[in-house]
């Protein structure tokens, strides 16, 4: 029990450190939401979205902007650690690699949720997309859990490569696609007022999340040693 409490304190320390650094290094806290808003704006002009098309196009626009903003979020996750030597400092500390992983994944999750909230507001303002549904909220949360978990792992892998900004999406997107497809399908159903895909895709997203939450920390511990 004492170990669990200690581990939670370490996890909370890593999480709060990352949040503090995100707010202190203001570049990322502004650039990622702005990038997402620009994406929505581009889609708006490129597809010439009219009010009667919003329901058809909104799910795709929503999740593409979430996904690309998410990749930017993941990219910064280990770059800062690597450049400043913080990761080395964490690795010589007597803490489990799992806690480091979950601390980083949790900070990525929270940052993505914040960005997604801003992008939902932008969608409402620019496209008139207004859907209030607990199913949509649950979909966003579950998808973001999977995205942040897998993204954190691939961020740790990509940071060791020379062209890390390119490597992360190349490695990451093929594996996250099932979750993203599920999220788009569920969002379409929520907007359309039906529920067939919800019962099919939401559990699948949950299963992928569970798999990622088990496998990713294990792989992280294995790859991070050297």
């Amino acid at each position, binding site marked *: 029990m004492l170990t669990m409490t200690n581990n939670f304190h370490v996890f909370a320390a890593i999480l709060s450190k990352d949040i503090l650094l995100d707010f202190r290094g203001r570049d990322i806290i502004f650039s990622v939401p702005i990038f997402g808003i620009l994406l929505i704006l581009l889609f708006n002009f490129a597809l010439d979205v009219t009010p009667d098309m919003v329901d058809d196009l909104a799910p795709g626009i929503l999740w593409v902007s979430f996904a690309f903003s998410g990749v930017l979020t993941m990219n910064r996750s280990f770059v800062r650690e690597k450049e400043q030597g913080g990761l080395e400092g964490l690795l*010589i500390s007597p803490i489990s690699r799992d806690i480091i992983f979950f601390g980083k994944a949790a900070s990525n999750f929270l940052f993505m949720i914040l960005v997604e909230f801003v992008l939902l507001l932008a969608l409402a303002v620019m496209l008139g997309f207004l859907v209030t549904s607990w199913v949509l909220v649950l979909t966003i949360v579950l998808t973001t859990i999977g995205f942040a978990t897998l993204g954190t792992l691939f961020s740790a892998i990509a940071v060791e490569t020379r062209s890390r900004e390119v490597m992360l999406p190349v490695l990451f997107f093929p594996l996250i696609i099932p979750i993203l497809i599920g999220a788009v399908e569920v969002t379409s159903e929520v907007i359309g007022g039906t529920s067939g895909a919800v019962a099919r895709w939401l559990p699948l997203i949950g299963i992928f999340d569970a798999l990622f939450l088990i496998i990713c920390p294990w792989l992280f511990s294995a790859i991070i040693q050297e």
Partner: protein
Amino acid sequence: MSDMIGKGILVQGLCKSYGNKPVLWDLNLEVNWGEILVLFGANGAGKTTLLRILSTQARADSGTIQVAGYNAKRQHQNIRQNVGVVAHQSLMYEDMTARENLMFYAKMYRIDDIKLSVEEVLVRVGLESRADDRLRTLSHGMKKRLAIARATLHDPKVLILDEPEAGLDEVSTVNLGNLLYEWVQKGKAVLMTTHNIDIGTNWANRVAILSNGAINEIDSIKVEDIKRKLYGNSMRPDVNYD
């Protein structure tokens, strides 16, 4: 210091390669409790690799390694809890203050009285007046002092220092020497590398030279002996090898 069993550091038959390139082979090393061992070696000799293995940041290909009495293969966490490391980088975050960085690491090491420990080490390295400044505003030497503060924060039994005096001014170098002296007076062990032969010979209880992937320990701590071992026939009378 009854809990200090065996040797501070014990390495037997250590081998390490990167790809096909062997860096360390059949390396043997001992650092006793209450002793500073200074390790010299030319650039690329494998000093940093050895220190990374001892601090559990890298794995050896083969060999037996014990640090602070713990086996490096099976007892990583015990070693990490009992070792303080000063590396080339400060291992801290530029956008956090000196105090915030130390508080963060104090939590990583699960120190009981965090505030007291942090204040103590800040005073120890003379950075209490800059404690609330962000790291990016500190000079290289100050960051090095902070790295020393971080390494000693959890009162480790073994200190592993990679060129700790690099970038330090004269006063800070003397303070570091005093700190290490006090450290070994308490029965703890220190292994450090340096290129500064004067500092190394002054601070060391024993010296060793890492060359060709193995340790060549020398009996005397004479500057000339060390230079001869390090630079061999390439020594020229008109060059200052310090």
